[in-house]
């Protein structure tokens, strides 16, 4: 049910003069439904993530509380809610309190523009891609706020690393989306979905890979969880947080994969498109679920990168790849597009062939160049002057 349908339904029962009340009530109802659904989904997702991480690492995961541990998120929330909410004496109280909310709101707001059906059911925005890029950029601010207001050196380290990393990864993410925008000829998410005769993951595999890597850095998950690297920084920017504020941070952090999966589904996996008897919403959920699964798989497998490796990966790896993709798609569009600016499915098949070759070649070239660099700069191991005292006395 979209906003318009609900609005027209409610509008019948009230006089014309107080339409603004109907508008507000409709918006409140829909946003309440969406926010609660998202929070519930996130709670379920934490359970799923922990169970799957357990299986991936030959463990069992939470299985004590409820059937298969399903009530574990509820237990976690109750525990976090009844804990003491400590604000450090030296902290900047206003900013400290505001930071979790600033991190949570962008994750929720992105769902305004996600088209779950034919249209997004909250708002019709014809600049959906720009909106998503702009809104998700706010989480840099939230992390800086949390780290700065805590007045804790580990929190500040985490926040500064986070700022550097998030701003760097915005660039390849936006550039990889530009290829999609060129191909679709629109920045409205609904138009991008409807223009996908062949899913863009096939037409632009390079853009998809770059987008997923940049997005998992944007939400600071492993292998890019430099912001809260537990082995070095305690917990990073939320070291000083406890109680409900910590719970909101965790909520935002676990909601991020769901948001990313929804965006990736819409932009690259064809959104609600699928084979006919099964409704589009089910296809959307299936695709989003598979994206979430891949994100989890990556998180369960790969170790964390160092700070310099992360920045090098963004600027030396992902940035050239996304520029290559952007140029190749632009040239292909110049050659293959119809007079009215659209692309037929036959042209897209040609693009699929070219782009897969380009992807393999460019990844191999860039990986080899980066790898050669690693090999050349590798110094021979230098033994400590103290370690071999007996040997040095001999000569």
């Amino acid at each position, binding site marked *: 049910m979209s906003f318009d349908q609900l609005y027209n339904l409610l509008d019948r029962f009230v006089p014309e003069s107080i339409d603004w009340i109907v508008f507000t009530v409709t918006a409140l109802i829909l946003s309440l439904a969406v926010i609660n659904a998202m929070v519930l989904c996130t709670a379920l997702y934490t359970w799923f993530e922990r169970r*799957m991480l357990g*299986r*991936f*690492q*030959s*463990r*069992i995961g939470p*299985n004590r509380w*409820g*059937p*298969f*541990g399903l009530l574990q998120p509820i237990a976690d929330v109750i525990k976090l809610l009844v804990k003491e909410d400590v604000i450090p004496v030296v902290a900047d109280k206003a900013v400290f309190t505001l930071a979790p909310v600033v991190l949570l709101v962008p994750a929720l707001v992105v769902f305004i523009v996600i088209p779950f059906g034919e249209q997004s059911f909250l708002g019709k925005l014809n600049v959906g891609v720009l909106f998503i890029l702009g809104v998700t950029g706010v989480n840099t601010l939230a992390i800086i706020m949390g780290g700065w207001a805590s007045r804790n050196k580990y929190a500040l380290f985490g926040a500064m690393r986070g700022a550097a990393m998030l701003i760097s990864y915005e660039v390849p993410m936006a550039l990889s989306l530009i290829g999609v925008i060129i191909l679709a000829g629109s920045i409205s998410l609904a138009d991008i979905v409807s223009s996908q005769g062949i899913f863009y993951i096939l037409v632009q595999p390079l853009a998809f890979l770059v987008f997923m890597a940049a997005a998992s850095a944007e939400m600071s998950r492993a292998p890019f969880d430099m912001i809260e690297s537990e082995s070095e920084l305690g917990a990073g920017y939320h070291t000083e947080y406890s109680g409900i504020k910590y719970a909101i941070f965790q909520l935002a952090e676990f909601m991020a994969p769901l948001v990313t999966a929804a965006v990736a589904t819409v932009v690259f996996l064809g959104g609600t498109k699928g084979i006919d008897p099964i409704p589009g919403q089910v296809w959307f959920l299936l695709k989003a679920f598979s994206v979430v699964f891949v994100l989890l*798989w*990556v998180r*369960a*497998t*790969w170790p964390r990168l160092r700070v310099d490796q992360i920045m090098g990966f963004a600027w030396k790896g992902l940035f050239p790849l996304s520029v290559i993709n952007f140029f190749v798609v632009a040239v292909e569009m110049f050659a293959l597009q119809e007079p009215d600016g659209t692309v037929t499915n036959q042209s897209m098949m040609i693009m699929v062939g070219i782009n897969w070759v380009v992807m393999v070649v460019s990844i*191999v070239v860039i*990986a*080899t160049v*980066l*790898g050669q660099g*690693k090999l050349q700069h590798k110094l021979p191991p230098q033994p400590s002057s103290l370690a071999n005292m007996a040997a040095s006395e001999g000569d």
Partner: protein
Amino acid sequence: MYGLGMVRGMGVTFKNLVLPSRQFAVQYPNRKISLLELARENDTNAISFAVNNPIQAIKALTGFAEVPVRLDQHSRFRGEEFAWYEQRCTGCASCAKFCPLGIIKIVTDTSGKYEQDGGKYDIEVFDIDIGRCMFCGLCVQACPYDALHMGSGFEEGVYSRNDLVIDIERLKAAPKKPSTWYRPQIESQNFDPQSGDTREYLDVGRHERPSQDQQVDRWANR
């Protein structure tokens, strides 16, 4: 190529996900059990088990069924709850002298009213503070009469430090399941404390207990 190892790593974790043989974690003290496993433990198939005990089957299907798990442990495992045989103990306090932490306290009755029965003291206090015990077993090695043995259990958690002091009443009441550590005479009998059976004081010594005649011969007729 730079990065192929990362792809191989993802294969390893995917094998962990799908292969049941990679799931080797032991769930102690209770294990969640599925319907198939439950039926196999009862030597039936799942359908007939579900027909016969539907409540157990529903519990198993919804993930609520549990079975207790015992961990494998060697018979020489040095556990808590010392096995002490008061019939063998002479109150010599060798264990207390050899304890490196000094956590064994023995008070004997010196009134001499048992002296004609073979010079045995009456033991009034025998406290072992296992809260500070490191289970080195020197007390067991020191015991000349094989009266004190290491125990075999380990589930002795309590809520107060004072409850960790084992007094003489608890030592007398403790199940007589001695660990076979430093006691080859019990181990040669193939005694396993985990099997549930106990050992009486006549069976745990290195030597035969002298008969009444031998004792009279040794002490009264000399």
